């Protein structure tokens, strides 16, 4: 009896040590797969917003992702004003309106193409469509293109920093956190 309880104790002690070791190693393995700090810190992108032309899509790069910048022409702004959902997505700098978003389809991450004539985006992978503010108009994408964190700095836009305009977009559900 004394013997078996001693064995029982040794079994439990061994199990406890092995369990702690297993959890600790799993944690170390998980952490080793995390993105490296250098990858995470990989910069902020500053865009000079005075350089863009009306209804001409420019693709910038931020954290390895393509960023769409589309300066809205006056007729596009007029169209957007008829739809609050569209208007919420635009960034106002001085008197100009810009659509700035991550150029990856919210379905499975392909890059949609912009068609200046019809003023919409078409994703060739699975046929999803977005309007000129990158709001979704045809499934399968579940939502409009995501807007990256930004801060307005005079005529410049800093991607990666969070300003009050971006926080408002997050709060009212215009975009998800990227």
């Amino acid at each position, binding site marked *: 009896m004394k013997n078996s309880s001693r064995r029982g104790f040794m079994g439990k002690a061994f199990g406890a040590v092995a369990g702690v070791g297993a959890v600790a190693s799993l944690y170390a393995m*998980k952490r080793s*797969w*995390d*993105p*490296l700090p250098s*990858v995470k810190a990989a910069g902020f992108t500053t865009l000079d917003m005075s350089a863009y032309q009306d209804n001409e899509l420019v*693709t910038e*790069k931020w*954290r*390895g*992702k*393509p960023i769409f910048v589309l300066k809205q022409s006056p007729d596009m702004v007029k169209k957007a004003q008829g739809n609050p959902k569209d208007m919420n997505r635009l960034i106002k700098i001085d008197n100009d309106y810009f659509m700035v978003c991550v150029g990856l389809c919210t*379905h*499975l*991450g*392909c*890059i949609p193409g912009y068609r200046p004539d019809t003023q919409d985006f078409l994703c*060739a*992978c*699975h*046929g999803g469509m977005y309007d000129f503010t990158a709001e979704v108009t045809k*499934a*399968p*994408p*579940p939502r409009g293109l995501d807007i990256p964190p930004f801060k307005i700095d005079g005529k410049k836009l800093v991607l990666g920093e969070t300003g009050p305009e971006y926080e408002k977009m997050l709060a009212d559900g215009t975009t*998800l956190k*990227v």
Partner: protein
Amino acid sequence: MAHFTKATSLHDWLNQRLAVDTLRRVLATEYWIPKNINFLWAMGMVLAITFGLLLISGIFLLMYYQPNVNLAFDSVNYTIMQEVGYGWLWRHVHGVAASVVFLIIYIHMFTGIYYGSYKQGREMIWLSGMLLFVAFSAEAFSGYMLPWGQMSYWAGMVITNLFSGGSLHADGLVEWIRGDYVPGQAFLNRFFMLHVLLIPLAILGLIGLHFGALRIPHVNNQDGEEIDFEAEAAKYKAGDKANSKVIAFVNDFMSKDMMVVGIYLIFFFYLVFYHYDFAMDPVNFDPADGLKTPAHIYPEWYFLWSYEILRPFSTNVGLIAFAFAQVIFFLLPFLDKSPNAVPASRRGLFKYWFWAMLIDMIILTAMGKVPPSGIFSTIGLYAALTFIGLWIILPFITKLEKKA
């Protein structure tokens, strides 16, 4: 310690230390295979040989391949293809074998389904086989990343995005898998590790399990007949080979196997030398570019059927349907409620179920290849619904089946 005597030969020396005679008897000369089989029973050996070809060609590719985003594409398309003596041979053997191995796996699977080789004690054979299928799929996917062409990059993007779980938005999980916001150096390196070490190790272990799972229930036969292997083996050993229902794995069965393997290898090397292009997507001969999606992204042909189950639905429903398709074949032994382990042709409604499933998967494969628009979208949708429907009715139609 065991008693050792002076060895009379090298064989005797080894036999005293490693019991090579016993090993040979248990694994080969007295491992019994039914006589009543056909060439489809050779697919296991064809797969083993193909895996060997993948391993050998992979070893040679590994000596020159560079798992670096700036060097990978050229190390494959320039160094291996143009500089290394016979480098093209290893690459084409590796690429063709990676594609053909799935053709044989599908034949092997559907043979098992047709002859009911997944029930009455053979469940573990089926389950370990399905685990092998999953491991081979992961191996194929991780290998497809390595040349770092456009299709590598964008397939990597799309497949890892599946792990965001649609509306769950588990973007953190996706970034964790990639080690970056987009597929990059960390991604290429870890998929390289998976492809050349971790998954091959898992495959070797699973092959051992798959073979082990065969020992007790034995190989099935063309009539699903329950054979008394001990009695039949006794007849064989007594010299009455003509009346015994079994033959030895070596040399009897192996010589039949090698006949099929020989024919297969002629077909295989014909593809390697004259039609390797079917396994080489032209889009993947453009280097990876994170800012340019190819016009049409599709997986290799062997993943098309499950891709087509994902595609016609909205994101969440599509992901659920896709997950269903990935795991449902595991449940086959448990969803088939009939006690009959006989060929599908003698099983009533299951006969139609078998052919409907086979044809439906061929249609899904074809529709996965064409752009998702118009009539193809519609056919794809109905084929995907048919796939799900067939699995739902399986328990009911097999329950109705009479004992044969």
